[in-house]
């Protein structure tokens, strides 16, 4: 009985750790997507967004962009076989021209954007898995 209890406690203790590591994996894949951009002179911000979300659920972050900079957004996931989508909208909700899927891998996708004005933009994204109900994600960005 004590052994079962100990095993249960161990599993409970390990559960959040494994979950945390998986979210970190999503960020690692976003950084893998960023690497070719770094070689092109992009500066990667250390701050980023991440979490866990229902497969296919659209999410949006609002972010300040400055006209004159070129931005890249890198979306990574820790789940295999997903479809990743990113879109950038201006303050009025209209799509901004992006260079889509400039760096795509099985676990990440990227877009580049030259903001036409300085202001608040919305980054819309989703990760859809054929097999998982929930997916881990991380969205990072850089500029040059």
């Amino acid at each position, binding site marked *: 009985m004590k052994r079962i209890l100990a095993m249960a406690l161990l599993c409970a203790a390990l559960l959040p750790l494994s979950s945390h590591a998986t979210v970190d994996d999503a*960020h690692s894949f976003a950084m893998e997507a960023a690497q070719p951009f770094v070689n092109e002179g992009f500066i990667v911000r250390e*701050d980023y967004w991440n*979490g866990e979300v229902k497969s296919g659920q659209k*999410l949006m*972050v609002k972010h300040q962009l*400055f006209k004159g900079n070129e931005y890249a957004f890198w979306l990574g996931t820790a789940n295999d076989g997903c479809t990743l989508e990113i879109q950038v909208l201006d*303050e009025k*909700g209209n799509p901004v021209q992006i260079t889509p899927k400039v760096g795509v891998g099985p676990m990440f996708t990227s877009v580049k954007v030259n903001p036409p004005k*300085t202001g608040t933009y919305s980054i819309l994204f989703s990760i859809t898995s054929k097999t998982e109900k929930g997916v881990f994600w991380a969205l990072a960005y850089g500029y040059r």
Partner: protein
Amino acid sequence: MTSRRSLSLLGLFSVAFSSAALGQGSNAGVVEVTSSAKNFPGYVVDDVVVPVPSEIFSVLDKLGEPNWRQELRNLKAPETTDRTRLSLVFGSVVAEGFIAVQAQDKKAVEDIGREVIDLSKSLGIQKAVLPHANAILDASKSNNWPAIRKEFDLTQKTVRETMEKMKDNDLSQCVSVGGWLRGTAAVTSVVGKNFSADRAELLQQPMLVDHFIGQIGKMPGNTKNHATVKAILDGLNVIKEIMTKSTEAFTPEGVSTINKTTGGLLELIDGKP
């Protein structure tokens, strides 16, 4: 960073039933979309990544050749144990670090690196900050400016995460506010010296100002009623009004007012009379 920006699946599902999504940070989470985004059946990640000053500086560099050395301030840490002020100062000192990188001023970077260590001691977060401060000092020896800039970004991130782990979310926000004020003071100074509509447009940041006003509004009473924080709130409202009036274009007077407002608040933070 990971914990602060975490958005849990459980939190996402529960948002329909409760306004408090289950993020690990106090403000992490999601809200149902109410924005102008058309046909968006999704959720807004209720968190803001504040740009570092370098993001704006890089545009100013493309539009001209600002004299960044001229923008550097002499550092003199306030003799205080007031953690709210120390957090505001910390943010402003890290922003000073970004200016020093832009100026490629090795001595300034070293002074700022040492100041970061002193402030982290006063705030009781030296253990978390020291590796970054040492990395800044090491990189300055080889004039590795990209590495120094990365470490300043990491320093701010680490400090804010450490404060949030210590349940000092209000102090974490003070670090962000202090950094933004210093960055904006430098930008308005550069723009004011060589005004153009393109340069001034960089000040169009109402979402960030709203974010800071909102964060101050959520602070506990003792922080919210802190004299310096109250003055910052007043100053942010002044800046917001100018931004609202300047959606088409900023005037030189508007830029000057933002510069005076941010400069005055920084003097208050530093404890200058």
